[in-house]
């Protein structure tokens, strides 16, 4: 990159975002984009991936289209951009009502940053509308989802390559925090991009300021007791991840009863108003920890999270990296715990394969298609199979696809199972999965199934008081809402 260009980018960075310098990787990606290349950017969580397309949008005259896999993530990102002062941002997804959707389509030219769900992008009316505008950059956020979830949960991802063609997209930016070599190739292939015109920029996924610990248990009771003790002595704030909403609720209640910690559950069944409140109370340090499902935290920008605990196994090691990556964005010492008992793997297997049709189901669907009223069906597997059927895929292709998927899901779980059984350095195992080598194990690296010296790590909780939880006077609240005003 020439100096002038770098200087110009730094100027924009300072003017619009207030930062003096770029984080590692950001400048390299912008540079490749400015050379008209497609880019796959593999940068660890907290590296500032969003800022890349924000800046690129400020340089280029036309729209930036961002494909985002999760609605909750999308809304968080839009809020974040609005927070930063971008007014022309929109989240285009299924949460929009009919009138809102019409409004957005009518005013599509006014938006600079358009976040859109893959489903919405597949809609022919939406595509027709998007054809009216010029798109400078097509961003696929959480791009590993194309390879990882593309087939079962998000079949619409298969259409992304068609959308890229239909919308005459000039450039594609794929963003992810974690992608093994296999995932990288698969993602670029699924988007039908030319490998030669696509630059892969990757920084190490290692987060050396996050201590890794695996703790094993014989039963649930032991695990619960350990968790209660752990969070009482750990410096917060923190997140505890669960794979079940019900258990997240139960544990949140239990923590409220048994400790002085301020805790709230967060998952898809918490209503929108409360989700905003919990998220922002957490951001303002009014909550010590959140008992969440994976929906929490994807878009939140909180630098001082000190710990992430997995009460259940995540879905894949990629997800694990993403989720623990929410800790220690300020660069300070943080910690990730995986609490594991043998039965967890069965629960994970059940959850992972819940929505994957097996051979019998696929055979039944293809032989009885005429008799099944697909439009009325709420069964996810039926909808999924119908997607393939309606696109003209053959039964054998579908059988193969789902056999492969089942195999890769089981394989992912095996990888996780290996992680919790590692004999040696956890970080070494973790990084090897992402094709990185690691030999710098030290006292602040990791430990397997042994007590962690929190004091040594500087993560021992200093004090807990409930003083801030006293009920305030309503007159004080109203006075705090307005600056220098009285009756």
């Amino acid at each position, binding site marked *: 990159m020439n100096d002038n260009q770098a200087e110009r980018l730094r100027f924009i960075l300072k003017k619009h975002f207030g930062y003096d310098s770029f984080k590692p990787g950001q400048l390299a990606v912008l540079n490749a984009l400015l050379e008209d290349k497609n880019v796959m950017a593999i940068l660890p969580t907290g590296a500032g991936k969003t800022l890349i397309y924000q800046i690129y949008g400020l340089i280029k005259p036309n729209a930036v289209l961002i494909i985002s896999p999760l609605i909750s993530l999308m*809304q968080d990102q839009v*809020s*974040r951009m*609005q*927070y*930063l*002062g971008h007014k022309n941002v*929109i989240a285009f997804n299924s949460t*929009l*009502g009919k*009138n*809102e959707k019409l*409004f*957005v389509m009518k005013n599509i030219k006014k938006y600079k940053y358009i976040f859109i769900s893959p489903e919405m992008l597949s809609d022919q009316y939406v595509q027709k509308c998007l054809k009216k505008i010029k798109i400078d950059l097509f961003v696929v956020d959480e791009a590993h989802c194309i390879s990882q979830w593309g087939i079962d949960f998000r079949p619409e991802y298969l259409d992304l390559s068609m959308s890229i063609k239909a919308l005459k997209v000039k450039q594609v930016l794929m963003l992810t925090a974690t992608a093994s070599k296999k995932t990288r190739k698969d993602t670029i292939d699924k988007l039908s991009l030319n490998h030669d015109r696509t630059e892969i920029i990757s920084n190490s996924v290692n987060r050396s300021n996050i201590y890794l610990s695996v703790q094993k248990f014989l039963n649930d009771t032991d695990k619960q007791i350990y968790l209660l003790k752990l969070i009482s002595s750990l410096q917060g704030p923190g997140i505890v991840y669960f794979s079940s909403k019900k258990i997240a609720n139960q544990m949140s209640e239990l923590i409220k009863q048994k400790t002085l910690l301020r805790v*709230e559950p967060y998952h898809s069944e918490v209503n*929108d*108003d*409360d989700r*905003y*409140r*919990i998220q*922002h*109370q957490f951001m*303002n340090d*009014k909550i010590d920890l959140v008992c969440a499902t994976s929906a929490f935290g994807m878009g939140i920008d909180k630098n001082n999270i000190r710990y992430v605990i997995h009460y259940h196994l995540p879905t894949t090691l990629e997800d694990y990296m993403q989720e623990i990556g929410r800790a220690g964005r300020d660069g300070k010492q943080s910690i990730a715990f995986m609490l594991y008992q043998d039965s967890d793997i069965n629960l994970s297997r059940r959850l992972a394969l819940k929505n994957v049709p097996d051979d019998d189901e696929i055979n039944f669907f293809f032989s009885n298609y005429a008799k099944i009223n697909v439009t009325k069906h709420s069964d996810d597997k039926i909808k999924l199979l119908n997607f393939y059927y309606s696109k003209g895929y053959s039964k054998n292709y579908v059988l193969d696809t789902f056999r492969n998927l089942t195999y890769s899901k089981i394989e992912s779980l095996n990888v996780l199972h290996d992680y919790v059984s590692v004999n040696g350095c956890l970080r070494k195992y973790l990084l090897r999965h992402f094709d990185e080598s690691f030999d710098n194990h030290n006292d602040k690296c990791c430990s397997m199934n042994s007590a962690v010296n929190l004091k040594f790590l500087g993560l021992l909780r200093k004090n807990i008081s409930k003083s801030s939880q006293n*009920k*305030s*006077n*309503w007159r004080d*609240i*109203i006075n*705090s*809402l*307005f*600056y220098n*005003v*009285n*009756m």
Partner: protein
Amino acid sequence: MQIDDDFLILLFSDTQPRRPKLIENLLAGKKTVSTLFWGMRYELINYCELFSNYKNFNIINNLKLLIDKKYLKKTIDGEHLLLTSAGKEQQNDILNNYYLPRHSEIYHKYNILRFKKRFLLALQVSSEYSFSNKKYYPLKMNILEYNLIKKWFKLNKDSQLSTKMYRLLYTFAESMNDDMAWQLMTTLTGHAKVALTADQQSKYLNTTILQLYFRQIDMFCVLLKFIKSSNEYNFLEPLTVGIRVNLMSNASLKTFELFLDGYSLNETAYYRHIKVNTVKEHLLNAAITLPKKQFPYNRLLSLKSLKIFQQRFTGNIDDWQFTAVKNDNLSFFDFRLYQIFRSKVDE
């Protein structure tokens, strides 16, 4: 939302058998003729649509537990429920201490939840503006509503906005008891201050989430009235634009207006592009939801038919059967309308 047993007990009677599914539909806002008619007969119509914003609203499972606890019992037909004597006793105990929504006349006239969302965003915007802060996360909301508040803010952002908002809130909060005022204040998100969740509020106030919900509905009903009552607050008038609603559906209202203009049932059906039977359903909805004087019963019930009805039916209106007039050349529509007419007479 967790539905309180106490609330459910208040929905039943020890003398009038009531259909649980119908009450559920009424609360969820499924406004069919039968739901509205029986809602009126059960004197529960004020609670219509209280839970229309909740998907999969269900009380049947909770009711099963109340049957197990012997507060409710099934009638012989198995489709209705009655309070047992223990249930009645429980109801008497609850009655004085349980907060039920009191402002259905406003709730059924305005979309209060929409007004609430608008007000909360307007308040947040004003609070941040007061601190000259432009960097904040706005409350999440429908784009069209968001634009409405944006327009409102553009028109109103001046040095007086904070004072005006502050005065409104203060005066309004002072008109309530301390707990209600506290609940209102902790529902607000503003500069460096995030609202509490309903669960957090319920723990502080030692009450249920449902009780807080009912109080909140009333609070915003009264706030709406409050804003409309004084010129001092007319800067907030734009927040009340386009939120008028009716207890009867819009379709029923359109049909009823045509009929009021003097068109016959057939003509109304023709102009509305609907079946005559649908016109009749719409008119029944109108009759149920309107005060007696506002519905032209005389255009639909002839003196002759009134006479027949009077001869055939006495006693409890709930117990009347259409079969008693089936051979008198009267329709079920006539019969239902007469039931409504008489229910209103009895008011």
